[in-house]
């Protein structure tokens, strides 16, 4: 049996503060295989972002284990490429210099890192904006720069936390197709958080549904759509049926 790329075993996490305890995640078990694109949906407050902070290694679980590649369990920091909800570009660095941060952290010289990143700009639609500061970029461009930065961490596991959540519907759709293209090229293992059921279904090989707080896995659905995905699939019967299944798992009356 192959070793899962990311495995969570009965992970629980609570936060204490202001005299109250908030149970964010309860008994979450999850396996993501190599090259798999898994989307995670859940109502707000279901601990989705906590899940990521745990996998990244910014937080440690109260109980349970988190393992990457089967054997990296304790020191996970720096092992996954993490893209948070906000683009978090450094305002004092140009788009290109933001993208090369992980390369610089890995000890590469600035010039070498720039050269490497510059070669990837066309794919990210940023070749004309390499030297622009983030403030001069549109929301979609900022997200693409942030994703380039995430890709340049050169990790084979990517955690994307609602990367398109703040974008308008049109830009969002463009970026979804574009993300699938990039992923098709690099083939990393991806865990993608969203609160949009359609997005979860359109992008993922598998959709994990979390419950409201405390977050538990209430459903794991294998998506019945072929790759490569096409927009027309959204109108198909399988898509509608699975969408209804997901909504039901989220507690929406269908």
């Amino acid at each position, binding site marked *: 049996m192959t070793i899962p790329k990311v495995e969570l075993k009965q992970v629980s996490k609570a936060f204490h503060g202001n005299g109250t305890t908030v149970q964010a995640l309860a008994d979450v078990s999850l396996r993501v295989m190599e090259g798999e694109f898994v989307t995670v949906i859940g109502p707000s407050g279901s601990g989705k972002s906590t899940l990521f902070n745990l996998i990244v290694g910014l937080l440690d679980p109260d109980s349970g284990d988190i393992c990457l590649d089967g054997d990296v369990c304790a020191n996970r920091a720096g092992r996954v490429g993490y893209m948070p909800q906000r683009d978090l570009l450094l305002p*004092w660095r140009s788009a290109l210099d933001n993208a090369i941060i*992980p390369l610089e952290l890995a000890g590469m010289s600035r010039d070498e890192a720039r050269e490497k990143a510059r070669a990837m700009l066309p794919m990210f639609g940023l070749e004309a904006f390499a030297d622009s500061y983030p403030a001069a970029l549109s929301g979609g461009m900022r997200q693409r720069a942030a994703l380039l930065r995430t890709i340049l961490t050169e990790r084979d596991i990517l955690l994307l936390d609602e990367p398109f959540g703040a974008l308008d519907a049109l830009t969002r759709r463009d970026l979804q197709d574009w993300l699938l293209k990039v992923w098709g090229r690099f083939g990393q293992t991806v865990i993608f958080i969203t609160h949009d059921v359609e997005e979860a279904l359109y992008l993922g090989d598998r959709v994990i549904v979390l419950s409201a707080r405390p977050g538990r896995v209430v459903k794991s659905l294998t998506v019945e759509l072929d790759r490569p995905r096409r927009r027309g699939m959204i109108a198909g019967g399988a898509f509608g049926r699975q969408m209804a299944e997901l909504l039901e798992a989220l507690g929406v009356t269908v």
Partner: protein
Amino acid sequence: MSDSTEHRTRPPRWLREAFPPALLIVLAILTWHAAAVESGLASFILPTPAQVIAAGWETRAILGQAILTTMIETALGLGIALAFGILIAAAMDLSPFLRRALYPILVASQTVQILAIAPLLIIWFGFGLLPKVIIVVLICFFPLAVSTADGLASSDPDLIALLRSMGASRGQVWRMVRLPSALPAFFSGLRVAVTYSVVGATIGEWVGGSQGLGLYMLRSKNALATDQVFFAMLITSVLSIGLFVLVYLIERLALPWYYSAQRKEQWEETGIF
């Protein structure tokens, strides 16, 4: 309201910025001149602007030496205040204990009357350079320390978490996130500090100096050479403004991202401000 023809004939930006204050200054000088002439007051009470300039020109040899002395004190004081302010800000940022310990003392230090402490400093450290430099440091390090500490505290915790997730060390986080994000606040503090610095040095000289603009002012006052007092005040202002502009220019060069992020300039073209 700004159609394209009007837009094209608009004067350049620097002129639009410089014109209002220049106009006001010219008006003020004219009013001053008129008041001095019409009132018939003796020139040791209210000299005309022309008399002030002439008095300065006549004493240019002494003045040159005085300006040099004051500038050296100011520069030394500012330099020490910079080092001191940044050090204290960094210490407060690294240790919450030190922050709690130092902050009230910092504030208290600013409530001490400089005019009261200046003579004491002269008694302790003599009539030379040192007490003046100390006064400049006392005045300048506070805005520097407070603004730098606030700037360091303002860095986005999510940014830090992101870099940590990429495996960045504490030092790398400092260099890439903490320091750059503290710079705008630091420069604001520096602008305040340099504006007060020259005045600080002249206060020290006034209270007990053997050289400098403050002493020149004191002697001129005692000799009822009011025109010279005015001229020295003018020089003090010009020096302060010069330092302010210098810091502003350095800031523009050092923080291009900060100014390009301010969209106000684009909006100004639309005339909604």
